[in-house]
């Protein structure tokens, strides 16, 4: 187990260097001079462009710029935006907001998705099953921004149940609707995966044995059936945290949340390589660590899986 963990952690290093370079290179090759559109319908004065070029060493070749960036990164310095704001500050304010939103979304999709999956998996072809099938189909088919705008308009503007945008305090109660919107598609997938998995294992030998032993149904489902059926769901949930954080840009925009999506979008448009890389690097780390966590959870859920 310890050696497995160490091996997995060491694997992070090449992945980390590879992704940072790839992203740095990609943003660097986005066409457009970062200062060309800066001063509106007239070109910026040469003196301004020169000062910025000098300050950010933009006339150096790509690998020198990347090397400088990595060198600073290892000293804990993420660099600066064109406007001179430390990128570390942006990460410190934007990440917690996105993480909070993603965790709320994850919790909502896990609870609702799993409940729907278990109920329909046990009683297939009933009314509830059909209802869940149709509603999940609907949720998967509708783009996130449609669900977001409709809920914002109906709940916020028409019925005044919520405020249309989230305040800067980011209270959990304000995040329920945005979280639901963000997690809606995944929620539908989780319900469907859980339903299939439960329905399949429902006919497994160990379930029949447990029922034959005379165990109460609650225990059969809650302990024996659920635990084994959770593996595909956990895989989905684990990788979903990263996907939710990275995909939160639309939801953040609709509900006015100051998260990483907005920052990445702004940075890509203005060619701020350092900002894009810094934010994405943290996102990559989230992905990698969540994957590791999921793999470790397999062993806990299924005793047949062992790591060495």
């Amino acid at each position, binding site marked *: 187990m310890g050696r497995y963990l160490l091996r997995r952690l060491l694997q992070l290093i090449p992945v980390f260097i590879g992704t940072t370079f790839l992203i740095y290179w990609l943003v660097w090759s986005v*066409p*457009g*001079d970062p200062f*060309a*559109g*800066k*001063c*509106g*319908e*007239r*070109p*910026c*004065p*040469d*003196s*301004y*462009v*020169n*000062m*910025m*070029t000098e300050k950010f060493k933009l006339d150096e070749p790509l690998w020198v710029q990347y090397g400088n960036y990595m060198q600073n990164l290892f000293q804990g310095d993420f660099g600066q935006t*064109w*406007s*001179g*704001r430390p990128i570390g*500050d*942006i990460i410190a*304010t*934007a990440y917690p907001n996105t993480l909070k939103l993603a965790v709320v979304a994850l919790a909502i999709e896990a609870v609702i998705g799993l409940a729907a999956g278990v109920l329909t998996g046990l009683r297939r072809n009933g009314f509830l099953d059909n209802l869940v099938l149709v509603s999940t189909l609907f949720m998967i088919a509708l*783009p996130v*921004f*449609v669900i*977001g*705008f*409709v809920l*914002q*308009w*109906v709940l*916020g*503007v*028409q019925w*005044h149940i919520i*405020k*249309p*945008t989230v305040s*800067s305090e980011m209270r959990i109660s304000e995040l329920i609707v945005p979280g639901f919107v963000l997690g809606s598609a995944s929620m539908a997938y989780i319900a469907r995966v859980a339903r299939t998995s439960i329905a399949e294992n429902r006919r497994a030998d160990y379930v029949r044995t447990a029922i034959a032993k005379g165990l109460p149904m609650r225990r059969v489902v809650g302990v024996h059936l659920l635990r084994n059926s959770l593996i595909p769901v956990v895989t989905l949930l684990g990788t979903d945290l990263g996907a939710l954080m990275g995909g939160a*840009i*639309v939801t*953040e*925009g*609709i*509900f*006015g949340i*100051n998260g990483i999506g*907005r920052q990445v*979008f*702004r940075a890509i*448009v*203005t*060619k701020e390589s350092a900002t894009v890389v810094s934010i994405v690097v943290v996102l990559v780390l989230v992905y990698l660590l969540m994957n590791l966590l999921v793999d470790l959870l397999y062993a806990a859920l299924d005793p047949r899986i062992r790591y060495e």
Partner: protein
Amino acid sequence: MRVSKRATSAVALGAAFALVASGCSGSDSDGGDAGASADGAITIDGTQPEVPLVPSNTTETGGGAIIDWMWTGLVEYPNDGGAPRNAVAESIETTDSKVYTVKIKQNTKFHDGTPVKAKNFVDAWNWGAYSPNGAQNGSFFADIQGFGDVHTEDPDGAEGPQKAPEPKAKEMSGLKVVDDWTFEVTLAAPTAVFPTKLGYSTFMPLPDAFFTQKPDEFGRKPIGNGPVKFVSWEDDVQIKLTRFDDYTLNDKLKIKDVNIKLYQDDTAAYNDLVSGNLDFQQQVPVSSLAGDKWKADLGDRAIQTTTPSTGIIAFPIYDKRFQNAKLRRAISLAINRQEISDKIFFGSRKPADSWANPLTPGAKQGNCTACQFNVDEARKLLAEAGGFQGELVMYYNADASHKEWMEAVAQQVKTNLGINARAEGVPTFAVFRQNINAHKMKGMYRAGWQQDYPDVENWVNPLYVTGGSSNDGLYSNKDVDALAKAASSAPSLEESHAKFAEAVALIDQDVPTVPIYFGGQQSGHSEKIKKLELTNVGELDLSSVEL
């Protein structure tokens, strides 16, 4: 001009559909209980300033609006767009339009309590002009004598390997402090419009505290001399301002706190406005204009106004194909501007019929004869010009809502003239402007102009004079240059305007660009606000707000 930096992402484009899909019509709002008191607070819409708030370094609307609120210049522009009047200045006097004596009022203060003195203006201008400081608006000081000594040009442009030489001097020789309340400005050449320019944000004074710290540090906690002072700035979330109680000029605030919420998406702001959580939005989203939905949502709180800006399609005159004035005139005459105004903008932007926006002092209405719609004349001119070979592409930046009207123009040119015309989007404003600045456009392209200061001069010199800062199509006509020069150096504004009218008549013959529409603005406010006015450029006039 200032450029809006609101990201118009896919989110905004989806809005129209979503709102239709939810089947909503008019909405009532019960938000905003009217607390008509002098301690009232309002929350208004804004965008994150791109750079720290230093007046001579801000060129976009998000930071520009805040600077306009936090500072008061020597002169100010009345909301009706008329001629400027003295604000901090007691008097601005000249006999020859070359040497100006500026006396300032003795009782105005910066927000840190220090008095506004003559040297605060002189030092601020010298700082903005000094090229190693790299101020984005540095070239605005070019009228002043000695500008060339403090602002050196890069011999081979910013792209080239050579560096700009160190300026000879740190201060412009044309600026002299006479005493605490008087200074003298000597211009390189007589310029009648100079006092008009002084209300533009670049010419604001800076307190002594600015010069003892780094500009960026100052810009994060700016100190101005206007009716509101800075409280706090939470990046991408909000900027808080409050009334400056020691303000002595007459545009004092009737409310106390102003909270500027920094939205990334204008639809989010609009929904906050409609549900009563936001008190003012300067421009409602495009999606709400369809079918006049915004008027249904806001009722009598919807404000339709015009702004001194013009949407233009420019010719790259450096391209051989566009060097025949008859061809340019033919294309301009083939465009039905009224139809575009009605069908695409639902009447919110008016068809352009003059070269300078008619809201501008000195501008004449209807002096663009090339702006008429006359297909027969257009076809005749096109035949005289020998037709147009190949494809005519009209470029626009696809990251803002220009697609519809650009495509409509291209279609009209195609139908009416039989030219193979089409519109093509360039992904981002940055790439778009880079090609324009480098004079590498392969077809006509969208441009726009919003005046920096209210005078017709601002609509001619930057756009149509050889070497003008935004004359990107490289249009050049010696007679226009001579007239514009004479107009700029005329001893009085009346004479200057008369000369500019002559220059514009020549421009009208050459058709270096195609004016399409005059800017319109659709704003909205909450029920909490009982009274408000908009400034000459469409920003909220904070001092007019009553709750």
